[in-house]
């Protein structure tokens, strides 16, 4: 056996997914919670859109733009939250020492968290997309290939942020917990979820265009309003995501090293 730490075992990834799955199914309120907030959000924005569209030419022509934005925002937000909550479970359970002392590699740990982020997302979002059809006649699935491109880009961003937050938690302990819950809200105004980038002050538009989700939300508006799928926007988003994801992994490994130096992996050490 080599000592690079670069070997990757699907078996160990499966072990971690199994651990989180056991946890998820052990509590029905946890399962319900996955569906509850996305449903409430979708209903609130859906009814708001229904009201506004009766009084605005723009929204009358842009059917579903609010609900679409809400559903895509939830992929971004809940993708990161699903990743971070699974990681936080280890800290809440004081299980991190057991994992860090086991043969589990960082890449395997991160892979398991990414898989669980998708599992939690699917449990939460699929019922809500069908409720959107029932209540508002908005069919997210009708976006077809565009939805696949939107999903890939949003989930990559959510994982990158989740990985960075996990590094902060390793390095700073539970003092960084609030970051897990709030960091994505910084993206809410900057990535122009509910309005076009052109609304922002000129200088802030540069910041906005450096964030991959901005391309997705602009792409969604182009699809719903102009009925055009902007492949160029999706490719640009993907390029930014590759850089963001690479940076997050680098930061995670540096923060893990720092946690070993600071002794923060062993809570309660004397």
């Amino acid at each position: 056996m080599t000592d690079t730490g670069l070997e990757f075992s699907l078996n160990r990834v499966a072990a971690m997914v199994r651990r989180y799955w056991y946890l998820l199914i052990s509590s029905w309120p946890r399962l319900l919670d996955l569906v509850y907030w996305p449903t409430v959000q979708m209903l609130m924005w859906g009814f708001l859109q229904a009201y506004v569209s009766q009084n605005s030419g723009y929204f009358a022509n842009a059917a579903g733009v609010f609900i679409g934005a809400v559903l895509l925002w939830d992929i971004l937000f809940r993708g990161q939250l699903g990743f971070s909550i699974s990681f936080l479970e280890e800290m809440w359970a004081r299980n991190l020492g057991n994992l860090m002392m086991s043969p589990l590699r960082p890449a395997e740990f991160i892979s398991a968290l990414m898989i669980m982020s998708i599992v939690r997302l699917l449990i939460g979002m699929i019922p809500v997309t069908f409720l959107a059809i029932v209540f508002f006649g908005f069919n997210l699935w009708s976006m077809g290939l565009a939805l696949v491109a939107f999903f890939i880009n949003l989930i990559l961003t959510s994982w990158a942020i989740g990985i960075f937050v996990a590094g902060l938690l390793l390095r700073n302990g539970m003092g960084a917990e609030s970051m897990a819950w709030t960091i994505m809200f910084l993206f809410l105004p900057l990535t122009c979820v509910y309005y076009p980038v052109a609304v922002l002050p000129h200088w802030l538009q540069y910041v906005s265009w450096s964030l991959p989700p901005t391309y997705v939300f602009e792409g969604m508006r182009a699809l719903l309003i102009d009925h055009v799928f902007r492949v160029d926007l999706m490719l640009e988003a993907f390029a930014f995501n590759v850089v963001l994801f690479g940076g997050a992994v680098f930061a995670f490994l540096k923060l893990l090293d720092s946690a070993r130096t600071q002794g923060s992996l062993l809570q309660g050490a004397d």
Partner: protein
Amino acid sequence: MDVKPAPAIAVDNLVKRYKTATAVDGISFQLAPGTVTGLLGGNGAGKTTTIAMIMGLVTPTAGTVAVLGAQMPKQRYRVLHRMNFESPYVDMPMRLTVRQNLSVFAQLYAVPDEAVRIASLAVDLDLTEFLDRPAGKLSAGQKTRVSLAKSLLNKPDVLLLDEPTASLDPDTADWVRTHLERYRAETGATILLASHNMNEVERLCERVIIMKKGRVEDDDTPARLLARYSRETLEEVFLDVARGRQREVAG
């Protein structure tokens, strides 16, 4: 000619400094394979930090730690599958049942015949009736036994134990000690045991390292320590060292 086996654990001039404190201050020792060594010291003596550096969880400020020939933490993935540990500073996920917890760790350590191994440990550590109970619903003593079962899942060559019988009743504690003795005899594992229970150390350990303020204050067999300090029990020796009486007593 006798060839001395390579040490299972080799600690050389190990130092760990945090911002304002020195937790471990230049300690050195080597543990021969198949031995059981007790690590004694009061709270804040540096035992847990030392064990954490041996496990690769904490990076030393200076000095080196080698486990089964691998430098820690740099080469930890060479040997982590041959090590395990039990500590009161870590827990098992509370919502998972004992069986689920042990299954996950068995898979992480690639334990063959996972179900058989878990059943066997459950019998040995008297856990059978708790296997399908959530870990959070167990008593402190039962949790300690589960944690011990986790530490033995992969039949480790190096076993690090931090207070393994804390919060166990005397009967169960005795049972656990017997199990550890049998495990060592059967597998030839090297065990490093941090404990405040002097009876346990006297019974299990052929060597005792006493730490104080991050340094090794004494290091010998229990019999020689008792003789050197002219004491009847290791507890008296420990108190002599803790209260700074070792120089006048031991000379």
